[in-house]
């Protein structure tokens, strides 16, 4: 399974490196979203700084949708999905590989977006350990859930509209937990942000387990 995961992740990342869709389209899109948030709240700079963490994670969610759709559109072109099935790769390995490739892209996006909220919104980010831990767990959860729902919608003609409808409600706990942890790290809310990490860890564990167990069947049946 791990060998298959590395193979699939390497393939997906190589596709992204050659097509440059993430760097040339998704990253500018993410920054544009931040800018538009900035325009909407521009007249109230303190509010912008305070809501920066929430806006950051909303932008990450939107980019996650793009990354997941892109990941599965690769497999739907010219019979690539049949090629993947015919290769006999382990379903859990394919899931972990695709989720890992999405996670790598999200980490790059989060680094750019974090820089953006600090520069554009004036959000003060402290407690780097909490910030990084939140990013790791939230990214794992988003990538895992995105991969599960991505394969479910991949074979359908309405996948572009169905995926957000399926995925966004499901990842609401990630948005809540990650935003609260970052608000605590930014000093906007009182209390420890660490308690939210258990929610993020549980979410990631559930969807990673579900994906490893069910992805092979989902790849077959959809």
């Amino acid at each position: 399974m791990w060998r298959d995961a590395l193979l699939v992740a390497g393939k997906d990342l190589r596709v992204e490196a050659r097509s440059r869709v993430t760097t040339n389209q998704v990253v500018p899109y993410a920054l544009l979203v931040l800018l538009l948030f900035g325009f909407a709240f521009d007249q109230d700079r303190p509010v912008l700084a305070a809501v920066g963490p929430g806006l950051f994670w909303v932008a990450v969610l939107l980019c996650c949708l793009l990354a997941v759709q892109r990941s599965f559109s690769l497999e739907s072109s010219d019979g690539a999905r049949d090629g993947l099935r015919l290769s006999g790769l382990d379903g859990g390995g394919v899931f972990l590989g695709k989720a890992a490739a999405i996670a790598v892209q999200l980490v790059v996006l989060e680094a750019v977006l974090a820089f953006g909220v600090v520069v554009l919104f004036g959000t003060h980010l402290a407690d780097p350990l909490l910030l990084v831990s939140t990013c790791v767990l939230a990214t794992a959860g988003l990538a895992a859930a995105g991969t599960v729902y991505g394969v479910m919608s991949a074979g359908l003609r309405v996948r572009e509209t169905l995926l957000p409808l399926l995925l966004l409600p499901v990842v609401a706990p990630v948005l809540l937990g990650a935003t609260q942890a970052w608000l605590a790290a930014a000093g906007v809310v009182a209390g420890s942000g660490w308690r939210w990490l258990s929610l993020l860890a549980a979410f990631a564990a559930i969807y990673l387990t579900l994906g490893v167990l069910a992805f092979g069947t989902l790849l077959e049946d959809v």
Partner: protein
Amino acid sequence: MEPVIRFRSAVALVGPFPVLAGVDLDVYPSEIVLLEGANGAGKTSILRACAGLLRVVAGEARVLGRDLVADPRSVRRRVGLLGHSTALYDDLTVADNLDFAVRASGGERSGVAPAMARLGLTGRLPASRVASLSAGQRRRVALAVLVARDPELWLLDEPHAGLDADNRDLLDALVTDAVGRGRTVLLASHERHRAHALAGRIVTVAGGATDPSVPDRRVRDAGGPLGFGPRSDAPGPEPGVSHVA
């Protein structure tokens, strides 16, 4: 001798519709069998069922000794399917695509370079993105994947489509070479002249089933025009299942 493919009253569904509605088919080792029939007759569905991509829900379906009704995935690494689509990634280079396809199916990377050379994928082509290739070149890359994997059972769906005359000759040579190495080939093609010259036996498909009203035709015996045909020690199909004209 155990057949490589043994279907009895095999039924497969796509949604509620039966795309295979009672297929009886035996294919023996080192045979080249041609599926003939009109568009929509079920030739592609038979090939996909043999590859374990289309689930057989009733009847008997065994490929390379594996029961596809129980577990269609079990046979996949041992078969190769060249279908209408090429299953290539546009943004990867030719070499990357071959490398991934061969490694993913558990094959050896050492087979990639000779396969590319055999298919004329040399010079700048290995480093070219697949998106930049012509349809014929893409077809050759898909064929190179099959050659590099060298599976026990070759399933070819309209293999001559998109290829020029020289590459059609090359394809025919690759198929006869594969059979010479003990591989088995099941193909569907509307290129009657070429396919008839290649095949050792022809099976007619109609309405999602092998047509019992049309007897199978043995085009030639072992040592036919291309030097390969059904092995002389291969038993004939069972009475009532298929007939040799």
